[in-house]
């Protein structure tokens, strides 16, 4: 009886969260890719992306969120983001420029810059997302 009451009590949050999460994710993607034109960028997008998972974890319990996005995957993504960034830089080196030189990534300097910035922002976003989620997992893991 009591439990049922509890369940009822959290129903609103649960539904709101379920509704909200896709929009938050969408917003994160918007911030990620619209960062060139407005405020935002990889870092902010990563945080917002992580925020979607955090609110999920807060409402449904972090164990449930772990099922959605397992710590193993998080760990890989964490490393992948950094690698993506660094390898973009190395790619510049291999194509004849300096480290992190985007001009050489594509035939024209401007589109090279475009791709370069896209790639590194993505790298930042992935790392920040996964680290933030990982932090949340670590701190919120159930004490009892």
């Amino acid at each position, binding site marked *: 009886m009591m439990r049922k009451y509890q369940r009822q009590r959290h129903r609103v949050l649960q539904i709101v969260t379920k509704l909200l999460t896709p929009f938050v994710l969408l917003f994160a993607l918007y911030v990620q890719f619209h960062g*060139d*034109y*407005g*405020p935002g960028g990889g*870092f902010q997008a990563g945080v917002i992306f992580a925020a979607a998972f955090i609110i999920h974890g807060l409402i449904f319990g972090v164990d449930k969120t772990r099922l959605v996005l397992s710590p193993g995957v998080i760990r890989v993504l964490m490393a992948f983001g950094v690698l993506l960034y660094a390898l973009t830089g190395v790619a510049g080196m291999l194509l004849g420029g300096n480290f992190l030189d985007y001009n050489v990534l594509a035939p*024209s300097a*401007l*589109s090279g810059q*475009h791709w370069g910035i896209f790639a590194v922002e993505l790298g930042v976003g992935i790392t*920040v997302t996964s680290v933030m989620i990982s*932090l949340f997992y*670590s*701190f919120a893991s159930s004490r009892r």
Partner: protein
Amino acid sequence: MLNFLALYNYWVVIVLMMAGLYIMIARHNLVKKLIGLSIFQTSIFYLYISMGKVSGGTAPILIGKISHEKEKAGSATSAAAEQITTVVYSNPLPHVLILTAIVVGVATTAVGLALIVRINEEYGSIEEDDIRAMEQRDPV
């Protein structure tokens, strides 16, 4: 007097900064120390951002249509160049620096908090005094 007003921002920031530093040094609660660190660092960010503000300026996101088509890149430049003659932008550089610094700050806070959780597990306390007493009782 004018000087005083113009520098008022800086001074408040310095007061905040020192308050943060004071919390870090003088408070014996470990979490409080980290909160102090946050305040300290945030005030430093504020110091930087103040330097980049230009009176009458606006956020350093170029106003006007900039084409992101690759072919039109050349003309976009000239369009942007026209714009900047009329609009004053604040200095973007401190913003970039502070974006980095914020991230660094939160990373430090996260590591510090993780350490606190572990310290609490091992010592059963997050008070500097208690921990020190315990360390003295059983030096390793």
